[in-house]
Structures are given as C-alpha cells and as structure tokens.
C-alpha cells in the first residue's frame, strides 16, 4: 500500500489514530463553545442574584432559585403574550400549509406552460428584503383599519412565501410522476391527487416547513413591533424586549424569561428533529 507524502515514517494505523484524536478534539471543542452560552442562559436563570456578579463564574447554581420562573409570571402578563404569540405562529403555519404544497404541485407535476415562468419569479421575490415593502404595506393595512390586529401578521402566509414554496418544490419535484399519472388515468381530480397522494408523501418537508414557519412567527420582532401597539396584543418578542429595557441588570430574571421563551421551541425541535433535519436537507441549490 502506498502512502502519501509527508507521513512516511508514521504507520497508517498511528496516522489514523491521530486523525481520530483530532476529529474528537475539535468536536469536543466546538461542542463546548456552542453549548456553553446555552448552558449559561439556563443556569443564570436560576442563580442567586448575588452570585451573578461574582468575579469567578459560578458553574452550578447554588442555591437554585426555581421561584424565578413564577416571579416572571408576576413581572409580566406572560399568559397574554403566549396566547398572542401562538396566534401569530400557528395561523401562518396553517396558511403556508394550504398554499405552499398546492403551488409547488402546480409548478412541478401539472404540465402547463406558465410554471416555467413562475418559478424564477418566485426565486426573484425571495431576494426582496421585506423592508422594501414595509412602508406601503403599513399604509394599506392602516387604511383598512387593521393596525393593532393580527391580520397583517397572519394573512400574507395564506398566499405562500417564496422560501417555503421553494423548499416544497424541491421535494415535490422528486416524487415519482408515475404514481400521479396513474391516479389521473384512474380519473382522480387534481385536488384529490394533491390531498390524498402528494400531502402524505411530503411528510418530511411538510414537518420542516411547519417547524420553520412556527419558529419564524414565534421569533418575529419586526412585524409585531410595527402592527401591534396595544400591550394586550403584545407577543413574547415585544414583551421580552420591553422587559429588557425595564429590568436592566436583573440578569437572572432576564435569563429566566429568555429560557422560558426558548423552551417550547426546544421541545418542538426535539419532537420533530428527525424529519426536520431530513427536510432541510432537500435544499441543495437554486436549481
């Protein structure tokens, strides 16, 4: 067996060992760097206020102040925020779920002339930052009297967003034509093919899109900042941002709030992890 260049003195076995060591070393190092801030958030959340500003970092909170979690509920109307956040996170999920598969199906599996012109247009709109349209849209919603409602934050999702249409299309494109054509020959209508054949086959990508849309609704700050003015309509993002400016330096409580804001997403991520990561992987290029 021929060996390459420099490592002629080292036996292949030893070289493999060194390589392995390097891989594990780097994996461990990066894991530390990526996990530590997360760990820091969760532990600061239950730390004693006096220990937070200690000169040497306290790695294990002692005493643990679990009551910080209930304290947060006293400090801000968390239930209202959660309810509102769920509205602006769940309704768009439903919207995208109705729109994106239908559009993707039409673009890939229905043989009609328009599809090849529409897909490039969809990709092009993906490039338009939403700041470009934000002033006129605000003015329109305001003329319609819909400022301070959830409509501007939810309704657009029902018309499909380019990124999700794109993800969906990449997946639907790979589905076997034969199954769909067979269904057509059997006389099934396109709606029936879409809902009884395509949807079930798209489970991984549908899960991915649902999680992504939910996360983006849950995360969104810019939208609620523009459209929700009444504090009874605030979402967690704004609530937390407000709390940050009112509770400066109370890092334990700020981290408690951040942790609580994060927990639901972590739970969802772990539940959907397998399909979610599989679904994102359908993205490989702009083709």
């Amino acid at each position, binding site marked *: 067996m021929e060996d*390459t260049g420099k490592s002629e003195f080292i036996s292949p076995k030893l070289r493999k060992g060194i390589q392995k060591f390097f891989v594990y070393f780097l994996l461990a190092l990066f894991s530390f760097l*990526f996990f530590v801030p997360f760990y820091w958030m969760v532990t600061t959340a239950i730390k004693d206020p006096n220990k937070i500003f200690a000169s040497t970092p306290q790695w294990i909170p002692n005493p643990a102040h679990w009551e910080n979690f209930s304290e947060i509920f006293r400090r801000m109307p968390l239930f209202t925020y959660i309810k509102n956040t769920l509205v602006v996170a769940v309704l768009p999920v439903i919207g995208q779920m109705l729109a994106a598969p239908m559009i993707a199906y*039409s673009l890939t599996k229905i043989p009609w002339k328009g599809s090849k012109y529409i897909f490039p247009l969809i990709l092009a709109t993906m490039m338009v930052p939403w700041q470009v*349209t934000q002033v006129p849209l605000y003015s329109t919603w305001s003329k319609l009297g819909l400022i301070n409602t959830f409509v501007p934050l939810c309704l657009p999702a029902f018309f499909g967003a380019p990124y999700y249409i794109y993800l969906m299309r990449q997946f639907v494109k790979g589905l076997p034509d034969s199954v769909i054509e067979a269904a057509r020959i059997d006389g099934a209508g396109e709606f029936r093919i879409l809902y009884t054949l395509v949807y079930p086959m798209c489970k991984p990508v549908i899960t991915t899109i649902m999680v992504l849309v939910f996360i983006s609704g849950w995360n969104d700050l810019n939208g609620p*900042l523009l459209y929700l003015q009444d504090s009874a309509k605030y979402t*967690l993002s704004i609530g*937390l941002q407000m709390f940050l400016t009112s509770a400066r330096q109370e890092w334990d409580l700020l981290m408690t709030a951040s942790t609580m804001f994060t927990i639901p*997403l972590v739970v969802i991520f772990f539940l959907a992890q397998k399909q979610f990561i599989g679904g994102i992987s359908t993205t490989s290029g702009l083709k």
Partner: protein
Amino acid sequence: MNLTAREKSKKGKQKMSRMEKRFFRIGLLFVSPWIIGFLCFQIFPICSALYYSFTDYNVFQPAKWVGLKNYIQLFKNDLFYKSLQNTLYVTVIGLPLGLVVSLSLATLLNQQAKGLRVFRTLFYLPTVVPVVASAMLFLWVLNPEYGLLNNLLSLLGIKGPSWLSDPNYTKLSLLIMDVWRCGQTMIIFLSALKAVPPSLYEAAQLDGAGPVKRFFKITLPYISPTIQFNMIMGLIGYFQYFTQAFVFASVSQQQQTITGGPKNSLLFYSLYLYQQGFSYLKMGYASAMAIILFVIVMIVSFFALRISEKRVNYDVE
C-alpha cells in the same frame, strides 16, 4: 419535444387540446394564491414605495408630491452613509465567516466518529433559541465586567474589550452571536457533503491526493450549488439585518430616539429605515430608502448569481 413546440409557435395560435386546456386552468388555479400574493404584497407595495419616495407622507395625511427632495436629503445625510457602511461591514465580514464556520462544522460532522448525532444536535441547538432571547443572552455573555466571555478570556490572561460599548467591537459582538447561530447553514452543507459519491474520494486517494487537496479538488466543486444557495440566503439575511441589532442598540442607548448603538455603530440600513418611517413617521423618506435598498439588492443579487453561475458546477449532478 422542442421541435413540436417550435412548430406550434410557427403556426401561430393553434388551439390547445382539451387536455392542455384543462391542465392550464388547474395549474393556474393552483398557483393563483401566489399570483395574488405577488401582486398584493410585492408588486403593489414596490410601486407605491416608488410613488411615496417622491412625496412627503406620514400615513395620516394624503401624500404631498415633493419631487426628488427625499433622495437629495438622503444623499446629503451622513447617517444614511453610516447605515450603508455598517450593513456592508457585517455582510463582508459576517457572510464569509458564517460560511467558513458552518462548512467546517459540517465537514467535521461528516467524518467517521461516534456520537455524531449528539454533536449535530449540540451545534444546531443555538439556532432554536429565539433571536430576541439570543440577543439578550449575548448581552449578558458579552457584558464587559461580569460576562462569561471576558471571564474566560481573563483566565487565558487576555483582557477582553468592552464588547457592547466600544464602537469598534459592537458589530463584532453581533457577528459572534450570528456565528453561534449558524446551525441551519451547517445542516444544509452537511446534507450536500453526504451526497458526494465516496467513489470520487477513493479514486483521488489512489492518485495520492491528501485530505486538503481532496477537499479543494473534489468536495468544494461538488457542493458548489449549495455554497451558492447559502451565500445568496446569507446575503438576503444581511440586507434585512434587524432584530439582533434592534435589541443590542436599544440597550446601549436607552434615552435616545435614534437607537443606533454607541456612536451609531449599530445603525444598520433596515434599522435606520424603520426609525425614519415609524419613529418619525417620515414615510416618504423611508420609501426613498426602500427604493434605494431595492435597487442595491437587485444589482448585488444579479452579480452574485452571475459570478457564482460561472463557478458553480452543476455538471456533477
């Protein structure tokens, strides 16, 4: 196929067959949500923004035509240039940094080792933390006196900078956080790496190519479509850089209405646009900014696609 299509167009508007007509109608029906959305949420607002950009407008009163006034004011305004410069800074530094880190992590996860799924989850976890929560967490981690980072740095004998108040470091602070949240890009890279046929590597190894050479001669060309995709997505992300900066800036300078952070070092384009439009209700001015942003985005993405198209290797698929 091609021939018949050409013949058809030569003969002019020949009638479509019944089947074609049916497919055309149903196809159009299925994309109609997008078409409606495209007209209402893209075309119409972009056209209105163009109109508003030539007016004085504050939502409550009708727009008043002022010609090029907004644009002239913009081009005379230092803050406008500052915001462009800040946005350019994070794009030029953050984009390559993010791509390199996420590709390195993906490469690491593509090695043969045990427990890779656990590591993958660990690397991805930060992406799951909401942006506002991440920003708050990093305000804490980067706290100059009590923050974790400077604490750890002092263990190494390094005196960490004032990440959040020194204008030379504020943008870097944001980028540290962004790199921490690179999981999404990493996963996309990882799936592309997994798709490279092992036979290619084996062949190269027999030819005596070392790991570095293999990476540059085989891996990079093979995953170039994915690099292009992640680059474009990253570019889009930086054009609309808002939430992180908004949270960071709102803390560093609470009292001021223009929250641009220390010495406006965090005044990004979208932040400035937001303030002009929605804090001062100078909607005409903000619209002029929107139109300029639109033009910049069009030019940049045109070139990004053009340049990368030449280098992207689609043949390998």
